[in-house]
Protein backbone atom coordinates (compact mmCIF):
# COMPACT_ATOMS: atom_id res chain seq x y z
CA UNK A 1 0.00 0.00 0.00
CA UNK A 2 1.21 3.50 -0.75
CA UNK A 3 1.06 6.22 1.88
CA UNK A 4 -1.96 7.96 0.30
CA UNK A 5 -3.86 4.72 0.07
CA UNK A 6 -3.12 4.06 3.72
CA UNK A 7 -4.50 7.44 4.69
CA UNK A 8 -7.63 7.02 2.67
CA UNK A 9 -8.50 3.69 4.16
CA UNK A 10 -7.11 4.32 7.60
CA UNK A 11 -9.73 3.87 10.34
CA UNK A 12 -10.28 6.41 13.12
CA UNK A 13 -9.16 3.88 15.70
CA UNK A 14 -6.77 1.04 15.16
CA UNK A 15 -5.75 -1.05 18.19
CA UNK A 16 -3.39 -3.93 17.42
CA UNK A 17 -2.33 -6.87 19.56
CA UNK A 18 -3.44 -5.32 22.83
CA UNK A 19 -2.49 -7.28 25.95
CA UNK A 20 -3.26 -6.30 29.52
CA UNK A 21 -2.70 -8.44 32.60
CA UNK A 22 -3.84 -7.95 36.16
CA UNK A 23 -1.59 -10.10 38.30
CA UNK A 24 -2.36 -13.66 37.20
CA UNK A 25 -5.25 -12.97 34.85
CA UNK A 26 -4.98 -11.66 31.33
CA UNK A 27 -7.94 -9.33 31.02
CA UNK A 28 -7.22 -8.50 27.38
CA UNK A 29 -5.22 -11.00 25.38
CA UNK A 30 -3.91 -9.86 22.00
CA UNK A 31 -7.02 -8.09 20.79
CA UNK A 32 -7.30 -6.09 17.56
CA UNK A 33 -10.09 -3.52 17.32
CA UNK A 34 -10.64 -1.03 14.56
CA UNK A 35 -13.34 1.57 14.19
CA UNK A 36 -13.80 3.15 10.79
CA UNK A 37 -14.88 6.72 10.12
CA UNK A 38 -18.61 7.02 10.91
CA UNK A 39 -18.84 3.41 11.98
CA UNK A 40 -20.67 2.08 15.04
CA UNK A 41 -18.79 -0.96 16.30
CA UNK A 42 -20.23 -3.15 19.04
CA UNK A 43 -17.93 -4.64 21.67
CA UNK A 44 -19.71 -7.51 23.35
CA UNK A 45 -18.91 -10.54 25.45
CA UNK A 46 -19.85 -12.17 28.75
CA UNK A 47 -19.23 -10.47 32.10
CA UNK A 48 -15.55 -10.13 32.86
CA UNK A 49 -14.48 -10.73 29.25
CA UNK A 50 -12.36 -7.57 29.17
CA UNK A 51 -14.63 -5.01 27.48
CA UNK A 52 -14.26 -2.22 30.02
CA UNK A 53 -10.57 -2.96 30.34
CA UNK A 54 -10.30 -2.49 26.58
CA UNK A 55 -12.03 0.90 26.82
CA UNK A 56 -9.73 1.94 29.67
CA UNK A 57 -6.76 0.96 27.53
CA UNK A 58 -8.08 3.01 24.61
CA UNK A 59 -8.57 6.10 26.78
CA UNK A 60 -5.19 5.67 28.44
CA UNK A 61 -6.59 5.15 31.92
CA UNK A 62 -4.74 1.83 31.76
CA UNK A 63 -1.48 1.14 29.96
CA UNK A 64 -1.24 -1.96 27.78
CA UNK A 65 1.45 -4.56 28.44
CA UNK A 66 1.71 -5.08 24.69
CA UNK A 67 0.25 -3.67 21.51
CA UNK A 68 -0.19 -0.33 19.81
CA UNK A 69 -3.08 2.08 19.54
CA UNK A 70 -3.39 4.44 16.62
CA UNK A 71 -5.97 7.19 16.58
CA UNK A 72 -6.66 9.49 13.65
CA UNK A 73 -3.41 8.33 12.08
CA UNK A 74 -1.26 8.94 15.16
CA UNK A 75 0.32 6.46 17.52
CA UNK A 76 -1.20 7.32 20.89
CA UNK A 77 -0.08 4.23 22.81
CA UNK A 78 1.83 6.15 25.49
CA UNK A 79 -0.25 9.32 25.42
CA UNK A 80 -1.85 10.60 28.65
CA UNK A 81 -5.65 10.29 29.00
CA UNK A 82 -6.28 14.05 29.02
CA UNK A 83 -4.31 14.39 25.78
CA UNK A 84 -6.33 11.63 24.15
CA UNK A 85 -9.48 13.49 25.18
CA UNK A 86 -8.08 16.61 23.52
CA UNK A 87 -7.25 14.64 20.38
CA UNK A 88 -10.92 13.66 20.16
CA UNK A 89 -11.64 10.54 22.23
CA UNK A 90 -14.68 10.91 24.48
CA UNK A 91 -15.96 8.21 26.77
CA UNK A 92 -18.76 7.25 29.11
CA UNK A 93 -18.24 5.10 32.18
CA UNK A 94 -19.92 1.82 33.05
CA UNK A 95 -20.22 3.14 36.61
CA UNK A 96 -21.65 6.61 36.08
CA UNK A 97 -19.24 9.43 36.90
CA UNK A 98 -20.29 13.03 37.37
CA UNK A 99 -18.79 16.17 38.83
CA UNK A 100 -21.18 15.79 41.71
CA UNK A 101 -20.90 19.28 43.17
CA UNK A 102 -21.59 20.99 39.85
CA UNK A 103 -24.76 21.95 38.07
CA UNK A 104 -25.78 20.11 34.92
CA UNK A 105 -24.56 23.06 32.87
CA UNK A 106 -21.15 23.21 34.57
CA UNK A 107 -20.77 19.48 34.06
CA UNK A 108 -21.28 20.15 30.38
CA UNK A 109 -18.92 23.12 30.29
CA UNK A 110 -15.96 21.16 31.64
CA UNK A 111 -15.94 19.34 28.32
CA UNK A 112 -15.53 22.58 26.38
CA UNK A 113 -12.32 23.77 28.02
CA UNK A 114 -10.26 21.81 25.56
CA UNK A 115 -11.61 23.89 22.69
CA UNK A 116 -11.45 27.31 24.30
CA UNK A 117 -9.16 29.51 22.30
CA UNK A 118 -9.01 32.48 24.64
CA UNK A 119 -6.09 32.28 27.04
CA UNK A 120 -6.42 31.50 30.69
CA UNK A 121 -5.46 35.06 31.55
CA UNK A 122 -8.39 36.52 29.65
CA UNK A 123 -10.64 34.06 31.46
CA UNK A 124 -9.20 35.18 34.81
CA UNK A 125 -9.61 38.85 33.93
CA UNK A 126 -13.06 38.15 32.55
CA UNK A 127 -12.22 40.09 29.40
CA UNK A 128 -15.04 40.65 26.90
CA UNK A 129 -13.45 38.21 24.46
CA UNK A 130 -13.41 35.47 27.11
CA UNK A 131 -16.96 36.26 28.16
CA UNK A 132 -18.12 36.10 24.55
CA UNK A 133 -16.49 32.70 24.16
CA UNK A 134 -18.00 31.47 27.41
CA UNK A 135 -21.45 32.65 26.27
CA UNK A 136 -20.95 30.87 22.97
CA UNK A 137 -20.10 27.52 24.59
CA UNK A 138 -22.98 27.97 27.02
CA UNK A 139 -25.29 28.37 24.03
CA UNK A 140 -23.90 25.21 22.46
CA UNK A 141 -24.29 23.38 25.77
CA UNK A 142 -27.94 24.50 25.91
CA UNK A 143 -28.52 23.25 22.37
CA UNK A 144 -27.17 19.84 23.24
CA UNK A 145 -29.10 19.70 26.50
CA UNK A 146 -32.19 20.37 24.42
CA UNK A 147 -31.31 17.52 22.07
CA UNK A 148 -31.09 15.23 25.09
CA UNK A 149 -34.30 16.69 26.57
CA UNK A 150 -32.47 18.09 29.56
CA UNK A 151 -32.68 21.83 28.95
CA UNK A 152 -35.00 22.49 31.89
CA UNK A 153 -32.39 20.96 34.22
CA UNK A 154 -29.44 23.12 33.13
CA UNK A 155 -29.18 25.05 36.38
CA UNK A 156 -29.98 22.13 38.67
CA UNK A 157 -27.35 20.26 40.69
CA UNK A 158 -26.50 17.24 38.58
CA UNK A 159 -27.10 14.90 41.53
CA UNK A 160 -30.74 16.03 41.64
CA UNK A 161 -31.30 14.16 38.38
CA UNK A 162 -32.24 10.50 38.08
CA UNK A 163 -29.55 8.03 37.08
CA UNK A 164 -31.14 7.76 33.63
CA UNK A 165 -31.02 11.53 33.20
CA UNK A 166 -27.44 11.65 34.42
CA UNK A 167 -26.59 9.06 31.75
CA UNK A 168 -28.01 11.48 29.21
CA UNK A 169 -25.92 14.31 30.68
CA UNK A 170 -22.89 12.07 30.25
CA UNK A 171 -23.69 11.56 26.57
CA UNK A 172 -24.49 15.22 25.98
CA UNK A 173 -21.22 16.19 27.65
CA UNK A 174 -19.33 13.79 25.40
CA UNK A 175 -20.93 15.16 22.25
CA UNK A 176 -20.26 18.74 23.40
CA UNK A 177 -16.55 17.99 23.56
CA UNK A 178 -16.68 17.46 19.79
CA UNK A 179 -15.02 14.04 19.65
CA UNK A 180 -14.08 11.99 16.61
CA UNK A 181 -14.64 8.81 18.60
CA UNK A 182 -17.02 8.15 21.47
CA UNK A 183 -16.47 5.06 23.64
CA UNK A 184 -19.76 4.07 25.27
CA UNK A 185 -19.58 1.57 28.12
CA UNK A 186 -23.06 0.11 28.59
CA UNK A 187 -25.06 3.30 28.06
CA UNK A 188 -28.38 1.42 28.22
CA UNK A 189 -27.66 -0.15 31.61
CA UNK A 190 -30.38 0.81 34.05
CA UNK A 191 -32.54 2.60 31.49
CA UNK A 192 -36.29 1.94 31.29
CA UNK A 193 -37.37 0.39 27.92
CA UNK A 194 -38.84 3.61 26.43
CA UNK A 195 -35.59 5.37 27.27
CA UNK A 196 -33.65 2.63 25.53
CA UNK A 197 -35.51 3.52 22.32
CA UNK A 198 -34.63 7.15 22.85
CA UNK A 199 -31.01 6.20 23.47
CA UNK A 200 -30.86 4.27 20.22
CA UNK A 201 -32.21 7.26 18.31
CA UNK A 202 -29.74 9.59 20.03
CA UNK A 203 -26.73 7.42 19.30
CA UNK A 204 -27.78 7.31 15.64
CA UNK A 205 -27.94 11.11 15.63
CA UNK A 206 -24.49 11.33 17.19
CA UNK A 207 -23.12 9.46 14.23
CA UNK A 208 -25.32 10.91 11.49
CA UNK A 209 -25.45 14.57 12.52
CA UNK A 210 -22.18 14.95 14.40
CA UNK A 211 -20.05 12.49 12.44
CA UNK A 212 -18.90 10.74 15.59
CA UNK A 213 -17.55 7.21 15.25
CA UNK A 214 -18.64 4.97 18.10
CA UNK A 215 -17.39 1.94 19.98
CA UNK A 216 -20.36 0.59 21.89
CA UNK A 217 -20.20 -1.89 24.75
CA UNK A 218 -23.67 -3.26 25.31
CA UNK A 219 -25.34 -6.32 26.79
CA UNK A 220 -28.76 -5.46 25.38
CA UNK A 221 -28.73 -7.31 22.04
CA UNK A 222 -31.60 -5.24 20.67
CA UNK A 223 -29.45 -2.12 21.01
CA UNK A 224 -26.52 -3.90 19.40
CA UNK A 225 -28.62 -5.18 16.48
CA UNK A 226 -30.23 -1.82 15.81
CA UNK A 227 -27.07 0.25 15.98
CA UNK A 228 -23.96 -1.67 15.14
CA UNK A 229 -22.45 -1.95 11.68
CA UNK A 230 -20.02 -4.52 12.99
CA UNK A 231 -19.54 -6.43 16.24
CA UNK A 232 -16.41 -7.64 18.01
CA UNK A 233 -16.86 -10.42 20.55
CA UNK A 234 -14.51 -10.95 23.49
CA UNK A 235 -14.35 -13.99 25.72
CA UNK A 236 -11.85 -14.23 28.58
CA UNK A 237 -9.91 -11.39 27.00
CA UNK A 238 -9.66 -13.01 23.58
CA UNK A 239 -11.34 -11.93 20.39
CA UNK A 240 -13.50 -14.90 19.39
CA UNK A 241 -15.65 -13.47 16.61
CA UNK A 242 -16.09 -10.40 14.49
CA UNK A 243 -18.60 -9.40 11.85
CA UNK A 244 -22.15 -8.33 11.14
CA UNK A 245 -24.36 -8.43 14.29
CA UNK A 246 -26.75 -11.05 12.89
CA UNK A 247 -23.95 -13.37 11.79
CA UNK A 248 -22.07 -12.99 15.05
CA UNK A 249 -24.94 -13.75 17.42
CA UNK A 250 -25.52 -17.01 15.55
CA UNK A 251 -21.85 -17.96 15.60
CA UNK A 252 -21.50 -21.25 17.55
CA UNK A 253 -18.31 -20.00 19.25
CA UNK A 254 -20.17 -16.95 20.50
CA UNK A 255 -23.14 -18.94 21.77
CA UNK A 256 -20.73 -21.35 23.44
CA UNK A 257 -18.92 -18.45 25.14
CA UNK A 258 -22.12 -17.05 26.54
CA UNK A 259 -23.49 -20.43 27.63
CA UNK A 260 -20.17 -21.50 29.05
CA UNK A 261 -20.14 -18.42 31.25
CA UNK A 262 -23.84 -18.67 31.95
CA UNK A 263 -25.64 -16.82 29.18
CA UNK A 264 -26.18 -13.33 30.51
CA UNK A 265 -29.85 -12.73 31.11
CA UNK A 266 -29.57 -9.29 29.59
CA UNK A 267 -27.96 -10.69 26.46
CA UNK A 268 -30.84 -13.11 25.93
CA UNK A 269 -33.48 -10.41 26.10
Amino acid at each position, binding site marked *: MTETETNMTRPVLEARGIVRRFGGITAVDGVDVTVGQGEIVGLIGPNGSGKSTMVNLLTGELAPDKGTIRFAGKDITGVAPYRRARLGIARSFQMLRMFTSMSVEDNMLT*ATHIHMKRGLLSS*LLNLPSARAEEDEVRARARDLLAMFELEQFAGRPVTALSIGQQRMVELARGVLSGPKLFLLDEPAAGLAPPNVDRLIALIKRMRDEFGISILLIEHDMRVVRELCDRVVVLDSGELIAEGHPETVVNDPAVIEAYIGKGWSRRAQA
Partner: protein
Amino acid sequence: MKHLALFAAAIALLALAPVVLGGHGLSVMTLTLTNLVLAVGLNLVAGYCGQFSFAQAAFFGIGAYTTAIMSRDLGTGVWINLPAGIIIAGLFGLVLGVPALRVKGHFLAIVTIAFQTVVYLTLVQWTDFTGGQNGILVPGVGETSILGIIRFNVQSLDSYYWLTLALAAVAIVVAWRLVHSRLGREWIAVRDDETLAQAVGVNTTTTKLSAFVASAAFAGAAGALNAYTMRTAAPDDFTIFISSIILAIMILGGKGTFLGPIVGAFILTIIPESLGEFSRYKMLFFGVLLILTITFLPGGIMQLVRNARTRRA
Protein backbone atom coordinates in the same frame (compact mmCIF):
# COMPACT_ATOMS: atom_id res chain seq x y z
CA MET B 1 -23.61 43.61 40.43
CA LYS B 2 -25.47 42.91 43.66
CA HIS B 3 -22.39 41.05 44.87
CA LEU B 4 -20.14 43.94 43.96
CA ALA B 5 -22.31 46.49 45.78
CA LEU B 6 -22.42 44.36 48.94
CA PHE B 7 -18.68 43.83 48.76
CA ALA B 8 -17.97 47.55 48.37
CA ALA B 9 -20.28 48.34 51.26
CA ALA B 10 -18.57 45.78 53.50
CA ILE B 11 -15.11 47.14 52.70
CA ALA B 12 -16.29 50.73 53.30
CA LEU B 13 -17.74 49.71 56.65
CA LEU B 14 -14.54 47.91 57.64
CA ALA B 15 -12.52 50.95 56.63
CA LEU B 16 -14.27 52.84 59.41
CA ALA B 17 -13.03 50.44 62.09
CA PRO B 18 -10.22 52.76 63.34
CA VAL B 19 -12.87 55.36 64.17
CA VAL B 20 -14.58 53.11 66.70
CA LEU B 21 -11.89 50.66 67.77
CA GLY B 22 -9.01 51.20 70.15
CA GLY B 23 -5.50 49.81 69.80
CA HIS B 24 -6.29 46.25 70.84
CA GLY B 25 -9.46 46.08 68.79
CA LEU B 26 -7.64 47.30 65.74
CA SER B 27 -4.83 44.75 66.17
CA VAL B 28 -7.46 42.03 66.36
CA MET B 29 -9.07 43.34 63.17
CA THR B 30 -5.70 43.43 61.40
CA LEU B 31 -5.10 39.85 62.46
CA THR B 32 -8.61 38.94 61.29
CA LEU B 33 -7.94 40.29 57.83
CA THR B 34 -4.55 38.57 57.68
CA ASN B 35 -6.19 35.27 58.64
CA LEU B 36 -8.85 35.98 56.04
CA VAL B 37 -6.26 36.22 53.25
CA LEU B 38 -4.58 33.03 54.49
CA ALA B 39 -7.84 31.10 54.71
CA VAL B 40 -9.20 32.35 51.38
CA GLY B 41 -5.91 31.23 49.84
CA LEU B 42 -5.96 27.85 51.55
CA ASN B 43 -9.52 27.36 50.36
CA LEU B 44 -8.34 27.50 46.73
CA VAL B 45 -6.20 24.40 47.05
CA ALA B 46 -7.99 22.55 49.86
CA GLY B 47 -11.58 23.67 49.35
CA TYR B 48 -11.90 24.00 45.60
CA CYS B 49 -9.20 21.66 44.33
CA GLY B 50 -9.60 19.12 47.14
CA GLN B 51 -5.88 18.95 48.01
CA PHE B 52 -5.59 19.18 51.76
CA SER B 53 -2.71 21.23 53.13
CA PHE B 54 -1.26 21.80 56.56
CA ALA B 55 1.39 24.11 55.17
CA GLN B 56 -0.33 27.48 54.82
CA ALA B 57 1.71 28.98 57.69
CA ALA B 58 4.93 27.91 55.94
CA PHE B 59 4.03 30.05 52.92
CA PHE B 60 2.93 32.82 55.26
CA GLY B 61 6.42 32.65 56.78
CA ILE B 62 8.14 32.57 53.41
CA GLY B 63 6.32 35.79 52.50
CA ALA B 64 7.28 37.40 55.81
CA TYR B 65 10.94 36.43 55.55
CA THR B 66 11.02 37.70 51.97
CA THR B 67 10.12 41.14 53.28
CA ALA B 68 12.49 40.85 56.24
CA ILE B 69 15.50 39.58 54.31
CA MET B 70 15.05 41.86 51.32
CA SER B 71 14.63 44.90 53.58
CA ARG B 72 17.73 43.91 55.50
CA ASP B 73 20.02 42.91 52.64
CA LEU B 74 18.74 44.94 49.70
CA GLY B 75 16.97 47.82 51.37
CA THR B 76 13.94 47.37 49.13
CA GLY B 77 10.56 48.86 50.04
CA VAL B 78 7.06 47.45 50.31
CA TRP B 79 6.17 47.67 46.60
CA ILE B 80 9.11 45.43 45.76
CA ASN B 81 8.87 43.15 48.79
CA LEU B 82 5.16 42.45 48.51
CA PRO B 83 5.27 41.15 44.92
CA ALA B 84 8.53 39.35 45.74
CA GLY B 85 6.84 37.65 48.70
CA ILE B 86 3.98 36.57 46.44
CA ILE B 87 6.28 35.19 43.76
CA ILE B 88 8.69 33.43 46.10
CA ALA B 89 5.87 31.86 48.14
CA GLY B 90 4.24 30.83 44.83
CA LEU B 91 7.46 29.14 43.73
CA PHE B 92 7.60 27.26 47.03
CA GLY B 93 3.99 26.30 46.37
CA LEU B 94 5.33 24.53 43.31
CA VAL B 95 8.00 22.86 45.48
CA LEU B 96 5.25 21.42 47.69
CA GLY B 97 2.92 20.76 44.77
CA VAL B 98 5.24 18.46 42.85
CA PRO B 99 5.63 15.77 45.55
CA ALA B 100 1.99 16.32 46.56
CA LEU B 101 0.90 15.20 43.09
CA ARG B 102 1.87 11.65 43.87
CA VAL B 103 -0.18 11.24 47.02
CA LYS B 104 -3.76 11.55 48.24
CA GLY B 105 -5.67 11.68 51.51
CA HIS B 106 -3.67 11.01 54.66
CA PHE B 107 -0.43 10.74 52.74
CA LEU B 108 -0.96 14.16 51.23
CA ALA B 109 -1.61 15.54 54.73
CA ILE B 110 1.68 14.03 55.89
CA VAL B 111 3.62 15.48 52.95
CA THR B 112 2.25 18.95 53.70
CA ILE B 113 3.06 18.56 57.42
CA ALA B 114 6.59 17.55 56.48
CA PHE B 115 6.92 20.60 54.24
CA GLN B 116 5.60 22.86 57.00
CA THR B 117 8.09 21.34 59.46
CA VAL B 118 11.05 21.65 57.12
CA VAL B 119 10.29 25.32 56.49
CA TYR B 120 9.91 25.99 60.21
CA LEU B 121 13.14 24.19 61.08
CA THR B 122 14.98 26.05 58.34
CA LEU B 123 13.78 29.36 59.76
CA VAL B 124 15.00 28.34 63.21
CA GLN B 125 18.27 26.69 62.24
CA TRP B 126 19.67 28.77 59.42
CA THR B 127 20.67 31.46 61.89
CA ASP B 128 22.98 33.44 59.57
CA PHE B 129 20.27 33.99 57.04
CA THR B 130 17.05 34.01 59.07
CA GLY B 131 18.18 35.27 62.45
CA GLY B 132 17.27 31.95 64.07
CA GLN B 133 14.77 31.88 66.90
CA ASN B 134 14.90 35.67 67.31
CA GLY B 135 14.04 36.31 63.71
CA ILE B 136 14.68 39.57 61.88
CA LEU B 137 13.52 43.08 62.71
CA VAL B 138 11.67 44.79 59.90
CA PRO B 139 11.60 48.54 59.31
CA GLY B 140 8.20 50.21 58.99
CA VAL B 141 6.65 50.89 55.60
CA GLY B 142 7.08 54.61 56.26
CA GLU B 143 6.61 57.23 53.56
CA THR B 144 5.57 55.63 50.35
CA SER B 145 3.49 56.21 47.27
CA ILE B 146 1.63 54.25 44.65
CA LEU B 147 3.43 54.92 41.33
CA GLY B 148 4.61 58.22 42.78
CA ILE B 149 1.08 59.60 42.61
CA ILE B 150 -0.83 58.72 45.75
CA ARG B 151 1.53 59.51 48.60
CA PHE B 152 0.93 58.31 52.10
CA ASN B 153 2.76 57.65 55.31
CA VAL B 154 2.32 54.26 56.86
CA GLN B 155 3.25 54.59 60.48
CA SER B 156 0.22 54.38 62.73
CA LEU B 157 -1.69 51.25 63.61
CA ASP B 158 -4.57 52.70 61.56
CA SER B 159 -2.56 52.83 58.37
CA TYR B 160 -1.31 49.25 58.74
CA TYR B 161 -4.90 48.19 59.26
CA TRP B 162 -5.98 49.98 56.09
CA LEU B 163 -3.14 48.45 54.14
CA THR B 164 -4.17 44.99 55.35
CA LEU B 165 -7.79 45.76 54.47
CA ALA B 166 -6.71 46.75 50.97
CA LEU B 167 -4.81 43.48 50.61
CA ALA B 168 -7.82 41.50 51.85
CA ALA B 169 -10.08 43.30 49.36
CA VAL B 170 -7.72 42.55 46.47
CA ALA B 171 -7.34 38.94 47.64
CA ILE B 172 -11.11 38.46 47.68
CA VAL B 173 -11.49 39.89 44.18
CA VAL B 174 -8.65 37.75 42.82
CA ALA B 175 -10.05 34.63 44.50
CA TRP B 176 -13.49 35.39 43.08
CA ARG B 177 -12.09 35.66 39.57
CA LEU B 178 -10.02 32.50 40.00
CA VAL B 179 -12.87 30.28 41.14
CA HIS B 180 -15.25 31.72 38.57
CA SER B 181 -12.84 31.25 35.71
CA ARG B 182 -12.15 28.19 33.62
CA LEU B 183 -9.33 27.34 36.03
CA GLY B 184 -11.68 27.34 39.02
CA ARG B 185 -14.01 24.94 37.23
CA GLU B 186 -11.05 22.65 36.59
CA TRP B 187 -10.06 22.76 40.27
CA ILE B 188 -13.56 21.65 41.21
CA ALA B 189 -13.48 18.99 38.50
CA VAL B 190 -10.26 17.56 39.97
CA ARG B 191 -11.75 17.61 43.46
CA ASP B 192 -14.97 15.90 42.37
CA ASP B 193 -13.50 13.17 40.18
CA GLU B 194 -9.94 13.07 38.90
CA THR B 195 -10.53 10.21 36.48
CA LEU B 196 -13.49 11.97 34.92
CA ALA B 197 -11.56 15.25 34.80
CA GLN B 198 -8.86 13.55 32.74
CA ALA B 199 -11.45 11.92 30.53
CA VAL B 200 -12.87 15.33 29.58
CA GLY B 201 -9.39 16.65 28.83
CA VAL B 202 -8.32 18.37 32.04
CA ASN B 203 -4.59 18.21 32.67
CA THR B 204 -4.92 17.29 36.33
CA THR B 205 -1.20 17.73 37.00
CA THR B 206 -1.00 21.38 36.01
CA THR B 207 -4.43 22.04 37.47
CA LYS B 208 -3.35 20.82 40.91
CA LEU B 209 -0.04 22.63 40.70
CA SER B 210 -1.82 25.86 39.82
CA ALA B 211 -3.98 25.50 42.94
CA PHE B 212 -0.92 24.94 45.15
CA VAL B 213 0.81 27.95 43.63
CA ALA B 214 -2.23 30.23 43.92
CA SER B 215 -2.84 29.19 47.50
CA ALA B 216 0.80 29.75 48.48
CA ALA B 217 0.88 33.10 46.69
CA PHE B 218 -2.03 34.37 48.82
CA ALA B 219 -0.17 33.32 51.97
CA GLY B 220 2.99 34.96 50.65
CA ALA B 221 1.16 38.24 50.20
CA ALA B 222 -0.27 38.05 53.71
CA GLY B 223 3.18 37.26 55.11
CA ALA B 224 5.01 39.99 53.23
CA LEU B 225 2.63 42.59 54.61
CA ASN B 226 2.36 41.05 58.07
CA ALA B 227 6.12 41.36 58.57
CA TYR B 228 5.67 45.13 58.32
CA THR B 229 2.70 45.17 60.66
CA MET B 230 4.53 43.11 63.28
CA ARG B 231 7.86 44.86 62.56
CA THR B 232 9.48 41.47 62.76
CA ALA B 233 9.62 38.04 61.17
CA ALA B 234 10.13 35.30 63.74
CA PRO B 235 9.73 31.55 63.28
CA ASP B 236 7.15 31.02 66.02
CA ASP B 237 4.57 32.95 64.03
CA PHE B 238 4.79 30.29 61.30
CA THR B 239 4.33 27.02 63.12
CA ILE B 240 1.99 24.18 62.32
CA PHE B 241 -0.31 25.60 64.99
CA ILE B 242 -0.91 28.61 62.78
CA SER B 243 -1.53 26.28 59.84
CA SER B 244 -4.09 24.42 61.95
CA ILE B 245 -5.84 27.64 62.91
CA ILE B 246 -6.13 28.62 59.23
CA LEU B 247 -7.42 25.16 58.45
CA ALA B 248 -9.96 25.48 61.27
CA ILE B 249 -11.09 28.85 59.92
CA MET B 250 -11.66 27.39 56.48
CA ILE B 251 -13.45 24.28 57.75
CA LEU B 252 -15.63 26.05 60.29
CA GLY B 253 -16.63 28.65 57.71
CA GLY B 254 -17.23 26.09 55.00
CA LYS B 255 -14.54 24.72 52.72
CA GLY B 256 -15.11 25.00 49.01
CA THR B 257 -17.57 27.86 49.48
CA PHE B 258 -16.62 31.40 48.65
CA LEU B 259 -17.85 33.06 51.83
CA GLY B 260 -16.90 30.25 54.21
CA PRO B 261 -13.27 31.20 54.96
CA ILE B 262 -14.21 34.89 55.08
CA VAL B 263 -16.92 34.32 57.68
CA GLY B 264 -14.68 31.84 59.48
CA ALA B 265 -11.83 34.34 59.73
CA PHE B 266 -14.00 36.86 61.56
CA ILE B 267 -15.49 34.35 63.97
CA LEU B 268 -12.36 32.36 64.72
CA THR B 269 -10.10 35.37 65.13
CA ILE B 270 -12.36 37.68 67.08
CA ILE B 271 -13.78 35.12 69.52
CA PRO B 272 -10.48 33.64 70.74
CA GLU B 273 -8.92 37.10 71.00
CA SER B 274 -11.85 38.20 73.19
CA LEU B 275 -11.33 35.36 75.64
CA GLY B 276 -9.10 37.62 77.70
CA GLU B 277 -7.10 35.65 80.23
CA PHE B 278 -8.53 32.42 78.86
CA SER B 279 -6.88 33.03 75.51
CA ARG B 280 -4.04 30.73 76.50
CA TYR B 281 -6.57 27.93 75.97
CA LYS B 282 -6.97 29.12 72.40
CA MET B 283 -5.55 25.96 70.85
CA LEU B 284 -7.88 23.84 72.96
CA PHE B 285 -10.78 25.96 71.76
CA PHE B 286 -9.73 25.49 68.12
CA GLY B 287 -9.19 21.79 68.56
CA VAL B 288 -12.55 21.10 70.13
CA LEU B 289 -14.37 23.34 67.67
CA LEU B 290 -12.66 21.68 64.72
CA ILE B 291 -13.58 18.19 65.91
CA LEU B 292 -17.18 19.23 66.52
CA THR B 293 -17.44 20.90 63.12
CA ILE B 294 -15.95 18.01 61.18
CA THR B 295 -18.20 15.57 63.01
CA PHE B 296 -21.49 17.40 63.04
CA LEU B 297 -21.26 20.09 60.38
CA PRO B 298 -18.74 19.07 57.71
CA GLY B 299 -19.94 21.87 55.44
CA GLY B 300 -19.31 24.48 58.14
CA ILE B 301 -21.32 27.62 58.78
CA MET B 302 -22.11 27.98 55.09
CA GLN B 303 -23.87 24.62 55.27
CA LEU B 304 -26.17 26.10 57.94
CA VAL B 305 -26.81 29.07 55.69
CA ARG B 306 -27.58 26.83 52.72
CA ASN B 307 -29.88 24.62 54.77
CA ALA B 308 -31.77 27.65 56.04
CA ARG B 309 -32.15 28.94 52.48
CA THR B 310 -33.46 25.68 51.05
CA ARG B 311 -35.90 25.40 53.94
CA ARG B 312 -37.24 28.84 53.12
CA ALA B 313 -37.43 28.11 49.40
